[in-house]
Every structure is written in structure tokens, then in C-alpha cells.
């Protein structure tokens, strides 16, 4: 019992003493804040590792969590961006195509204005479905003023002639078709002849007498005498000159200047023959509609 009382007294006295110390310290540190700061640095040193570790852990957890959330967002965003990319790619392709078309049409316009040719611009929309006739289909018909017999030309040269017209399309017979014929002039010798189709990408120059010197590579231009093609348009160049011992005329092979397989836009120019039909053609005009006449 006495021991207990003694212990209580000691504890009570200790409490009193230390409270007094605390009071003294408080009063002293109010006047000298540096004292508090000294101890503060020590305590901070003790708890900083724990705080640092916790901060690292928190940052890690935060980054994992954010990464996960972002991953969900990224997947959705990725899908959206892919769709957007696809749309933009097709748009770029369309714009590129429009730009190229624009460029070709400008060229065609320039060509027609330089040559003072007033016609209708048409886009090539197909070839001859039968495969036996070398022809093209264009997207302009009688409603646009297209009529059979109109010359179809391109800045590269002569393409052919309109042989059939519907309201919204027209059929063009290429110069490379057997039934086609173009009255031409040799550029240097000025000798006349007729170019007729002879194959896929070959024409034949007929009625050039043997006394005329024909050189390979010489250009062949329209004479304007057939009443279809304006004078001076390039038809092609001499690819080969044959030496036949029989007959009055020499066989001359012409390579057309136009690549018919790559034609996209053409110019349809009215000619003297367009009102009455194909003048110099062996090919019969067909499918002529009322509006096209």
C-alpha cells in the first residue's frame, strides 16, 4: 500500500515537473522559434523515409490505376482514331483523285482553248462490252449536245469518233478500230493518207505511194479534209515502214499517240459530219436517239 502511494507520488511529481518543463519550453520556443526548428529537422529525418516510401507507393498505385483507366480510354480512343483515319484516308484519296481530275481537265481546257475548239468535255465511263469493237463509252449524250460524227480528241491526240448517242452517254469508236478511218498528213513530207485501225494498239497508214520517203518516228497529223477532225491534231507516229514489192502504196505502221487504256477525260468536238452521221466511217451509226440528232 505504501509502495503504491509512493509510486503515485512519484508519478504525480514527475507529471508536475515535466508539465512545468513543457510550459517553460513553450514559453521559450515562442520567443526562440529556432529551438523548435532544430527538433523538427530531427523528427523529419526520422519520418521522411516512411513518407518517401508511402509517396512512392502512392505514386505507383496512382500510375497503375491511371494506366488502367487510360488503357480503357485508349482502346476506345484507338477505335475512334482508326475510324477517323479510315475516313480521312478515303477523303484524301478522293481529294487526290479530284486534284488529278482537275489537272487533266485544265489540260483539256487549255488544249481546247489553244486550238480554239469548242466542244463538250466528257469522262470515259467504260469500254465496248462486246470486246470486238475498239470503242469507249463516255458520260455525255444528246442532252449535252453530243451528236454522232463528233470528233473525240485529247491533248495527246486523236481518240476517235462518236458513233452512237443516247441521252446521257455516247459510244466512241477509237481510231485503232478496223472500221475507223482518219484523213491524215505526214508532218514532214506533207503526203496524205488514211489511218485505219489494224490491231490493239496499232494503226495502218494507207494510200502512201512508194515514191514518198517515210521515216520511222515521223508524226502523222489530221488533215482536216475528212470533215470530222480539225486539222493539225496528232494521230500518232510512224512505227514501222514496210517494203512491199507489189502495189502502188507502201505499208506504214502507225502507233497512236493516245494511250486508249488510260483515257479518263476527252473532248467531243462538233464537226461538219456530226449532223449527218459518220462521214468517213465504214462503221454504221447506231443507237442514235432523237435528242442526239
Amino acid at each position, binding site marked *: 500500500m505504501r*509502495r*503504491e502511494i509512493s*509510486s*503515485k507520488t*512519484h*508519478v*504525480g511529481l*514527475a*507529471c508536475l515537473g*515535466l*508539465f512545468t*518543463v*513543457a*510550459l*517553460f*519550453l*513553450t*514559453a*521559450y*520556443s*515562442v520567443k526562440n*522559434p529556432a*529551438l*523548435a*526548428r532544430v*527538433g*523538427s*529537422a*530531427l*523528427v*523529419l529525418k*526520422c*519520418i521522411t523515409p*516512411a*513518407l518517401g516510401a*508511402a*509517396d512512392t507507393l*502512392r505514386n505507383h498505385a496512382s500510375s497503375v490505376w491511371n494506366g488502367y483507366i487510360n488503357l480503357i480510354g485508349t482502346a476506345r480512343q484507338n477505335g475512334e482514331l482508326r475510324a477517323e483515319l479510315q475516313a480521312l484516308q478515303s477523303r484524301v484519296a478522293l481529294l487526290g483523285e479530284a486534284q488529278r481530275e482537275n489537272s487533266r481537265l485544265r489540260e483539256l481546257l487549255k488544249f481546247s482553248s489553244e486550238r480554239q475548239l469548242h466542244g463538250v468535255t466528257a469522262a470515259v465511263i467504260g469500254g465496248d462490252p462486246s470486246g470486238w469493237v475498239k470503242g469507249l463509252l463516255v458520260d455525255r449524250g444528246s442532252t449535252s449536245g453530243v451528236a454522232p460524227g463528233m470528233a473525240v480528241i485529247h491533248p495527246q491526240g486523236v481518240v476517235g469518233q462518236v458513233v452512237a448517242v443516247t441521252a446521257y452517254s455516247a459510244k466512241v469508236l477509237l481510231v485503232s478500230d478496223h472500221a475507223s478511218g482518219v484523213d491524215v498528213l505526214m508532218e514532214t513530207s506533207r503526203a496524205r493518207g488514211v489511218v485505219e485501225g489494224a490491231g490493239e494498239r496499232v494503226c495502218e497508214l494507207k494510200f502512201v505511194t512508194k515514191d514518198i520517203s517515210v521515216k520511222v518516228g515521223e508524226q502523222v497529223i489530221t488533215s482536216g479534209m475528212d470533215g470530222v477532225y480539225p486539222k493539225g491534231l496528232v494521230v500518232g507516229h510512224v512505227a514501222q515502214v514496210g517494203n512491199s514489192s507489189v502495189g502502188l502504196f507502201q505499208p506504214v505502221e502507225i502507233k497512236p499517240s493516245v494511250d486508249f487504256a488510260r483515257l479518263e477525260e476527252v473532248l467531243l468536238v462538233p464537226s461538219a459530219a456530226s449532223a449527218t452521221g459518220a462521214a468517213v466511217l465504214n462503221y454504221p451509226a447506231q443507237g442514235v436517239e432523237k435528242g442526239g440528232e
Partner: protein
Amino acid sequence: MRLLVCFFVAVMLLSIQGILHSVGVPAWLIPQGLLVCVVFLAFYEFSLAGVVMAFLLGLLLDMSSGVLLGPWAGSYIIVYAIFAFLSQRLFVESVVVKMSVVAVGTILGGIVFLLLAFEYQSVSREDLVVLCGQALASAAVAPVVFKVLSRAWRRSGVSVSGRAGIVSAV
């Protein structure tokens, strides 16, 4: 040894308080871990060593604030003294009692601190709200801290059941 464990636990609790502050937990939600330790000491370490430890824990908190040295030390001494003398008449085996004692101790400690630091720090209504919040938060963690410290006390052969104050003091 047990007092060293108590000090280590106190430092850990102080670190946790710092972490909670740094992650943006509101001040009224952060428990006063050191005060819980002081209340535990008051009940289970009725001795000079317990008084010194309570004082040191208060000083530790003062030093961690870096503003004033002494008010928390004084405050903890008062809390220790009151509960140490009460411990002979009060059983703290029940969780509810532990929590209640810690809540009261927190408010008491806070009031003493505010009185001691009155010259330096003005008291606002917000301080009282924080104090009440901290009392509840401290009460919430009290059973856990008591359990951890009880284990250390048991390992050093001190009984922590019944009127612990009398038993451990001797």
C-alpha cells in the same frame, strides 16, 4: 523494451499521420495516434518511465510541427496524469470504453494544447470541429493501437488485463 516498441509504434503512427496529410485527407479525419499511445501508457504504464514516455511523445509531436516546442508535451502529460490516476478505478477491457477514453483524451489533450499555445495560436470554431473529428478518428483506431501495444506489453511479462495500472506500475 516495451517502451522502445511504444516509441517505434508512435513514430509509425506519426508517419501515417504525415502520409494522410500528404494525400489530402482532411485534418479532422486524421487520428491522433500518439495520443492513443499516451492513453495506453496511462492505463498500462503507471510509472516514471510512462510519464517520461508521454512527455517524449508530446515532444515528438511538437518537434514534428516545428513551430512550438512544449505545448503538446505539456498536453500529453496532463492527459497521462488524468488517465493514469483514473486507471485505478476504470476498466478499459471493453472496446467501447477504450474508444470513449481515447475520444475524451483527444478532446482534453486538444483543449490543453490550445490553452498552452494560446499566446501563439488563436482558437477558431474550425479548430474545435477538427478536434471533435480527430477525437472520433482516434477513437476508431484506438482498439488497433491498444492491441498492438498490448502484445508488446504481454511479451515483456506485464499483464494488460484487469486494473492494468496497478499491476504494471509495480
